[in-house]
C-alpha cells in the first residue's frame, strides 16, 4: 500500500509525472480512434449507397 502511495505521490512531484502520462495516453488514443472513425464512416456510406 505504501509502495503504491509513494508511486502516486512521488514526494509531491507525482502530479507532474502523471499529468504528462495522461496527456500522452490521450494523444495516443485520439490517434488510434480518429482513423478508425474515418474507416467506419466510409464503410457506412458504402453500405448506405448499396441499399439505395
Amino acid at each position, binding site marked *: 500500500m505504501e509502495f503504491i502511495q509513494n*508511486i502516486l505521490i*512521488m*514526494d509531491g*512531484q*507525482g502530479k*507532474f*509525472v502523471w*499529468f*504528462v*502520462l495522461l*496527456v*500522452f495516453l490521450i*494523444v*495516443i488514443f*485520439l*490517434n*488510434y480512434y480518429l*482513423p*478508425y472513425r*474515418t*474507416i*467506419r464512416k*466510409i*464503410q*457506412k456510406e*458504402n*453500405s448506405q449507397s*448499396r441499399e439505395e
Partner: protein
Amino acid sequence: MGSPPFFFEWASKLLPWFSPISFLILMIGLVWGIGFAPSDYKQGDVYRIIFVHVPSAILGQSIYLMMAIFGSICLIWRAKLAGMFLRSAAPLGASFTLIALISGAVWGKPTWGTWWVWDARLTSTLILFFLYVGIIGLYSSIDNKQRGDRAASLISVVGITIVPIIKKSVDWWQTLHQSSTFSLTSSPSMTADMYLPLLICVIGFYFIFVALLCNRLRAEILTRERNTGWVREYLNNKVPM
C-alpha cells in the same frame, strides 16, 4: 510495394501484430521507468518525465526525417503512396512533438522554475511543431490531392534543416536544456537501471508509431481510392465496424 491495394493489405495484416507488441513494450518500459527505476539524486522523481519526453522528442524529429525522404520520392517519382504517407505521418509527427513540448514545459516548471524559455532547443522544437501544423493545414486547404502532396513534399524537404538545428542546438548555443541523452559516440550518462527502461520506451514509441501509421494509412488509402474497383470490392465484403 508502391501500389495502394498491396500496401493496404500489408498494413491490415501488420496492424493486429504491431498494436499489442507496441503496447507490451511500452508497458514494460513505462512501468519499469515510472515504478521501479531509482530516483535522481538531484531532481528526485520528477525526472521520470524523461520516459515520455525523450522518446516523443526523438520520434518527432525522426518522423520529420522520414517525411522529407518520402517528400523527395513524391517530388521525383510522383509516387502516390509517398503522398499518402506524408498526409498520414504529419499528424503523428505533430502529436509526438506536442507531447515533447508539453512534457518539457511540465518538467521545466519544477526544475527550471518556469514553464517556457525562448531557448534554442525549445524554440527550434516549436518551429518543428509549426512545420507539421503547416503541412496539415496545407493538405486541408488544397482540394487537389496531387497538388497538396507536392506542396507538402516541398515543405517537408525544405524544412528538414530544422532537424540538425534541434539536434545541435544544445552544443551550438548556451541553453538551459541539458545535452543529448542518447549519443552514438559516447557511453550513456545515466545508470543502467535508468537507461534501459528509457531505451525500451524509445523502442516502444517506434513500434507504436508504426502501428498508428498503418492505421492512418489504411484510412487515407480508403479515402483517396474510394471510387476505385478494389476499394468497392473490399468494402462490399466488409460489414460496418
